[in-house]
């Protein structure tokens, strides 16, 4: 029953609408999940691989035919020529700040703020409502509360989720589904946790209403 509901939540979200990812992406998610749940030793390599695969899914990274890494620097906000050009412009415009401070202040590190803003956008409630609907985002929210109550256990969920958020935040143009797709196993787990939480039982009546609204809006 529980899994039917979880399936329901995801099937009405934009996760399974439109673009179908290559078969190896699904396979990789399953392998990565099994590996990290079996042993702590796999967590670091899984995080590493997820980082690059997520960049690839978001069209920010690829491998050339000679297997050379190829970053799409124009689409990455911290290396984008537009951002760098703006920083240079700020450097020349600010004639009041002493030269040394100016030299430090207006350098490429400033573009990190664009990345932080993207990350904050991915963490904002409205993003999750658009992605998972009202019913799904409430379950995720409850799941997060339960996860925190469980003292962030298992720990790899945390790293997995945030490596996806941080790497997706590097993109100038955020695509709602692409930017979060690889965190699907963690989201499913959070939804299940949300279902099982005590708070959910007390708000269940209203939750059905929200699910109904999501169905209508689908």
């Amino acid at each position, binding site marked *: 029953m529980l899994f039917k509901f979880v399936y329901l939540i995801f099937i009405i979200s934009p996760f399974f609408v439109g673009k179908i990812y290559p078969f190896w992406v699904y396979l990789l998610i399953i392998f990565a999940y099994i590996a990290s749940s079996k042993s702590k030793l796999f967590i670091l390599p899984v995080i590493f691989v997820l980082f690059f695969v997520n960049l690839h899914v978001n069209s920010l990274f690829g491998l050339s035919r000679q297997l050379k890494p190829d970053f799409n620097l124009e689409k990455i*906000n911290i290396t*984008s020529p*537009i*951002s760098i050009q*703006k*920083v240079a412009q*700020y450097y020349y*415009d*600010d004639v*009041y*700040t002493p030269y040394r401070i100016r030299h430090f*202040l207006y350098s490429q590190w*400033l*573009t*990190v*703020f*664009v990345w*932080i*803003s*993207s990350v*904050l*956008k991915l*963490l*904002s*409630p*409205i*993003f999750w*409502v*658009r992605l998972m609907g009202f019913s799904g985002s409430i379950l995720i929210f409850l799941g997060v509360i339960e996860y925190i109550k469980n003292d962030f256990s298992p720990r790899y969920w945390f790293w997995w989720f945030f490596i996806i958020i941080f790497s997706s935040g590097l993109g*100038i143009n955020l695509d709602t589904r692409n930017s979060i797709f690889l965190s699907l196993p963690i989201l499913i787990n959070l939804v299940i946790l949300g279902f099982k939480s005590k708070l959910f039982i007390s708000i269940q009546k209203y939750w059905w209403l929200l699910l109904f*609204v999501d169905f*209508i*809006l689908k």
Partner: protein
Amino acid sequence: MSNKHFVLFLILISVFGFYLRTKNIATNPPHLGNDEISIAFDSYSIRTVGKDEHGRSWPLSFMSHRSYKAPLYAYLNTPFNYIFGNNEYGIRMLSAISGTLLILIIGLLGKTSSNTSIGILSAIIIAITPKAIMASRIGYEANLALTIMSFGVLAMIYYRFAKKTIWLIVAGVFLGLSVWGYHTQWGLAPMLAFCLPMLFRPKIKFTKWWPTWILLVVIVFPIYLDFYQTQLSDSHNRASSQIWYQDGQLNDYLKNSPDNKVKKIAVLLISPINNYIEHFSFDTLFGDGLGMFERTSPLEFGWFLLPCLPLLIVGLIKVNTIFGDNKNWLLLWMALSPIIPATTYGGVAAVRNLSIMVPLSIITAGGWWYLKKHKPIIFLLTSSLLLLHLLIFLPTIFVHFQKSSGNYFQFGYKQSWEKIKPVVKNYQHVIVESRFGRFGQFVGVPHLYFGYFGAFPVEAMQSKTNENGRMKIDKFEFGHVDWMVEEIQPKSIYVVSTINPIVANAIGKLNQIEEIITPDNQSQFLIYATK
């Protein structure tokens, strides 16, 4: 901390806040904006002849550009207009002063909500909050209304503790006055006046609040009545045309989409809920929601400085420990603030939701105080980051924003007037083009800028006529200039958009006498005079 020290610190913080709000206020933002100039002229007009730009005597809403602005700012601004004259100080100082008073009020609210340290930290947070600084540097009626409403809420909180009837009266008067201040308060102030007593019920009988409600109703009645009358005479006024269901995109979807009716109704009803949730977006509040530059700019700021985010999270998690019972009114205020803005369209409406700054600042200060007490190293780290981010913000607002925001504030009309002012008496016709911008893509309100900075006689402004598609006020004409058909009269001056230089027969008749350059070195207007 003793009361004496608290007052001393609060005054020092307010002085610093006042400095941030008034430094170069005449030139940064570089020009008066569309709404500012409208309020400025109305205030000048009311002061001199008791009528607004459109000739209405002592109005309860200023018609402006059919936005029917709330009247309080224009009325309260008249002494400032008298003291400073028709310039930027004459419209912006009131906002700067009310922004400074807000620091004091938030300090007192913070102290009442928990302790003196949180009062001081709340005052610091609001003093350096980018959104509060920006709002206070512009003649926003929303900023004044927020200060007045916050004082009303403070009086309600004081009544909760002191139980003196005077606080009920003060609360009623100030909440009522805030409704005269800005459209958001039409809904928000009554909501607070009703919901806060509901919260305080265990300690104070609900019916005890009747003096506040009666005063509120008496004070706001003329405003609501005026709105009703405005609706009858001009149903497409801006106050009602900004409601979410008037959104063009939404209307297009409702009319043309093949979706079924049930879904369309759901979309219509869900839109304000989505708008509401959007007001709590972290990127808007802490990332890039301030709107100084385009959102991809590395120097764009959120409403609050970024290091306030962890402080707010700590404040929210520990809200019970820090604020005890007082958490309820803080959270209620936070939850109510975006309701009215969410019923309008156009995404997160920063000015309409200015009120959310107050509870967020106090909760953030609570988090900051909690870290100071329990995690001193993290407290030091976040405080340093806060200082660092403030140091980045200062050149951003005082240098880069000033330089890049010319078009947003219709830069050039005041400068054009100042250029032609010494010679204008020698000419019989002054023609000013209303479009501006690099591609002439914007249309401004030059007649208000010339009228305000030139201190035109108000009677002349009110007897303006429309001739050949141009607004005519004495020898001034405002509208479009097409050189191919323009009949150039002797003794004429033209102020035209830079994308519209003289061509054809005008070349032999006119000389360029001046050029208006924006702070970011773009040519904005060309000024020609007959040979």
